[in-house]
């Protein structure tokens, strides 16, 4: 039996630089899978020696997509180390900005990054707009941007591109692939929402900018609280937030939700998106403070897909190791003591399936050695899966009152069993459910903020940093791509150690010393590829995690060695 390698590099429509390699057998079934990042920037090295109050701005630049997550995490890790509790006004304002981030991230991911894996744009061009406008009512009583004239206009707009053989950003996609399952009319509905979402995502960015100053990279958090005191005290600003939030909520409930019901029904029998939970240990952490002591999502861990028991999170069990990552030290260490020097060993010469199906020379991962800039985080030595799927499933299993009814309704609307959620389809659907739960409940945080402002105008806690003291602290929470933690040490008034264990690190991790895979790799094993020159099934599965590779790639060197000085063999033979 011959074994052939498929290399997908770049994986596009994600944040950052990611390569996936798989080995397929004669039947085009995936036998082995490897995911690795091909870029390293070293931000944790760069924050060493800096003022702790500045680090939030540095960590924010880990990612311009989840542009608020690492900012907030960097600030809260320092607050935790210094023992600061920000005033309630600040905490609720942070929640309002966080809601904007989540919904922006999720809608952009589904429509602009992941949607093209489910929606065949070319097929939409042959739809009957009148029929499509009727089809839309099958999935909601109040369809969004799906009137016959609207759909005609969409078809015309995209059709003009296609007629000229110039598809712009849609060029050279896998359209026409046999695993696309929506009807032409359904594709047209989704395409209309794709275009509408370009507008909605701008509003979501403005929603963050109201209290954040701008987006990407908002700038109104400070250690101890928030700086946008004039904005939260302005009735006009609050009104602006409410209006924009409602506009986005409309889109989520009338376009995003029904589109996922539509996709779930159409793909319910497509084997390449089902029964592929990947890593079945699911991990999430509490997030979204909507009142003085109330949170939208709770923490927990589910082991081996067994929903009957949810375990508490023990943060001392988290480690990272680098057996197959381009770093010097392979040993598993807790993030407070993370130790990593880059040790790039390069790609090796080999062959992979080319564009036309013939084998071509390629540079390949040295899968026996190191093959990624992403380290392997483990919990008590085991891999975990994080993300909206883990968050929604763990909270469902815990009986969370905000989550259970929404999940139950979705299962009823789609006719799917709960077990179907543990899949690629489920990862994509739970992301939508998370966006819905957040947009529907942000109003609680909003009202509580207004209520609290009547008697309390504090926005920033006072604190001091004792230069003779050593501090350590962390942020743990849930961000659009899953569970995020930042860990810091402060000494002599400056940062001496910083480590971020991010969602994409968990999911995209390479194998560890025991050969355990991360979730990207695990979910690909056994996948049958219809056409090895168009590996849509792989891209779809990987996209379902919403990869964020700039986030996942990081390093901390506690010895302060000059990392840039390592000599690399120009030929990079592994």
């Amino acid at each position, binding site marked *: 039996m011959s074994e052939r390698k498929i290399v997908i*590099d770049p*994986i596009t429509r994600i944040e950052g630089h990611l390569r996936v390699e798989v080995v397929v057998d004669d039947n085009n079934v995936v036998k082995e899978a490897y995911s690795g990042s091909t870029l390293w*920037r070293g931000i944790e090295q760069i924050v060493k020696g800096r003022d702790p109050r500045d680090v939030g701005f540095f960590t924010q630049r880990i990612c311009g997509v989840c542009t608020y997550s690492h900012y907030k995490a960097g600030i809260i890790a320092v607050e935790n180390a210094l023992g600061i509790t920000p005033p309630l006004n600040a905490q609720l304002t942070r929640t309002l900005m966080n809601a904007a981030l989540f919904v922006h991230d999720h809608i952009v991911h589904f429509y602009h990054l992941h949607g093209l894996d489910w929606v065949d744009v070319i097929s939409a061009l042959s739809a009957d707009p009148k029929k499509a406008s009727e089809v839309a009512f099958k999935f909601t009583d109040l369809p969004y941007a799906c009137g016959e004239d609207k759909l005609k206009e969409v078809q015309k707009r995209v059709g003009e591109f296609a007629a000229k053989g110039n598809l712009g950003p849609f060029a050279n996609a896998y359209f026409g692939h046999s695993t696309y399952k929506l009807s032409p009319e359904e594709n047209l509905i989704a395409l209309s929402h794709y275009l509408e979402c370009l507008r909605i995502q701008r509003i979501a960015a403005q929603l963050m900018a109201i209290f954040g100053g701008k987006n990407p990279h908002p700038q109104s958090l400070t250690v101890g609280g928030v700086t946008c005191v004039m904005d939260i005290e302005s009735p006009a600003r609050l009104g602006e937030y409410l209006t924009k939030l409602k506009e986005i909520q409309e889109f989520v409930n009338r376009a995003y939700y029904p589109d996922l019901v539509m996709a779930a029904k159409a793909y319910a029998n497509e084997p390449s998106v089902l029964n592929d939970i990947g890593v079945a240990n699911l991990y999430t952490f509490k997030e979204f403070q909507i009142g003085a002591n109330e949170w939208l999502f709770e923490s927990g861990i589910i082991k081996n897909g067994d929903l009957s028991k949810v375990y508490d999170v023990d943060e001392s069990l988290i480690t990272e190791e680098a057996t197959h990552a381009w770093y010097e030290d392979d040993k598993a260490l807790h993030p407070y003591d993370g130790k990593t020097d880059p040790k790039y060993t390069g790609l090796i010469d080999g062959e992979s399936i080319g*564009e036309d199906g013939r084998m071509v020379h*390629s*540079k390949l991962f040295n899968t026996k050695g190191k093959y990624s800039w992403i380290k392997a985080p483990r919990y008590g030595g085991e891999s975990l899966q994080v993300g909206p799927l883990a968050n929604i499933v763990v909270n469902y299993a815990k009986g969370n009152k905000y989550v259970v009814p929404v999940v139950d309704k979705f299962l009823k609307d789609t006719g799917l069993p709960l077990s179907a959620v543990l899949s690629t389809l489920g990862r994509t659907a739970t992301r939508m459910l998370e966006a819905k739960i957040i947009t529907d409940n942000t109003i609680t945080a909003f009202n509580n903020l207004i209520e609290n402002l009547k008697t309390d105008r504090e926005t920033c806690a006072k604190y001091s940093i004792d230069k003779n003291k050593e501090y350590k602290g962390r942020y743990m929470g849930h961000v659009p791509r899953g569970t995020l933690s930042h860990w810091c040490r402060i000494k002599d008034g400056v940062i001496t150690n910083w480590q971020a264990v991010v969602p994409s690190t968990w999911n995209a991790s390479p194998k560890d010393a025991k050969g355990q895979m991360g979730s990207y790799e695990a979910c690909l094993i056994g996948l049958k590829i219809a056409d090895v020159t168009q590996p849509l099934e792989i891209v779809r599965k990987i996209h379902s995690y919403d990869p964020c590779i700039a986030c996942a790639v990081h390093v901390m060197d506690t010895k302060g060695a000059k990392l840039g000085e390592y000599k690399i063999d120009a030929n990079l033979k592994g």
Partner: protein
Amino acid sequence: MTENDVLVRINKRLLELSKIPRINQEGSIAKRLKEKGFSRRDFMKWAGAMSAFMALPSSFAPSIAKAAELSDRLPVIWLHMAECTGCSESLLRSDTPTIDSLIFDYISLEYHETLMAAAGHQAERNLHDAIKKYKNRYILMVEGAIPTGATEHYLTIGAEGHTGKQIAQNACENAAAIFSIGTCSSFGGIQAAHPNPSNSKALSVITSKQVINVPGCPPSEKNIVGTLLHFILFGTLPALDVYNRPKWAYGLRIHDLCERRGHFDAGEFVQSFGDEGAKQGFCLYKVGCKGPYTFNNCSRERFNSHTSWPIQAGHGCIGCSEPDFWDTMGPFEEPMADRLYNTPFGIGSDAVSDKIGVGILALTAVGIAAHAAIAAMKKGDNDE
């Protein structure tokens, strides 16, 4: 050169551009505008606003309108190097007037890793074909810094494992114009901050061709679209400052047009975040605002369709469009002259001011500090 001379030059250039075939053979941006419900009057109004934005006299408005119409001659290749995708995200915010985004909709975005549908071999094919097909005609926009030297392989893309540097150099070779979008590709940005473990460099360091810098972390969508229009109007020779930034966008300090400037002049300062001054909207200089040292148009244009900007949201400017700001502007919440922490870059304002780069800025730093001190003293006198 008089205004008229410039107009003559622009018109000559626009005429040349109009001879280049359209990428989309059918339709035109004018037609597209009409379809989207914009009247000619709306369009001219927009062109007038853009002229003001780009600090051009109103007599340039018809040329801007023409330039917008000719944007359908331009294929764009957008590369991602060592970056966070914030600049691409900023571009996606392009909104008001919607004509801005329409232009980006209408130019042919041949390669953009975050947006393109193709992946793997098919994505590489798009890049390769675009460079060949539009040789010397495409605009290259680069986001992110470029790892170099012994660490060049810290970024590789594609099945053949080409380095970011190789790909960027190759794309620069046949580009009609090259824009560094964002502080990373303009100056190295965050990954080039001390100790720069990936040896990341600005794009201009790895190519001998002229690079126009559009810094900011990220730059506003307006500065990205405006630079594109400016290129159409003026070719590769807009007025640039010492850091190759277009002067129309980066000619004034944040401080010059800041809405809190009156409080600065009156000596009314926020002393700490959350205090009474913060609630009153006083000047943020004493909590570290770098507006006096930062050249950009944020105070005029703001972000996200004019929704806000950092100083409105009560936080000082961190100087994100200046070279090496990560190393020279910190701590971000302390005035330059008042550094409390020992950092790898030394203590004290002199060491910092020297690193700002241009002599006049160092002088400004001292001047501003003095001005603030005097203003504060005066204020104190009045209070007594």
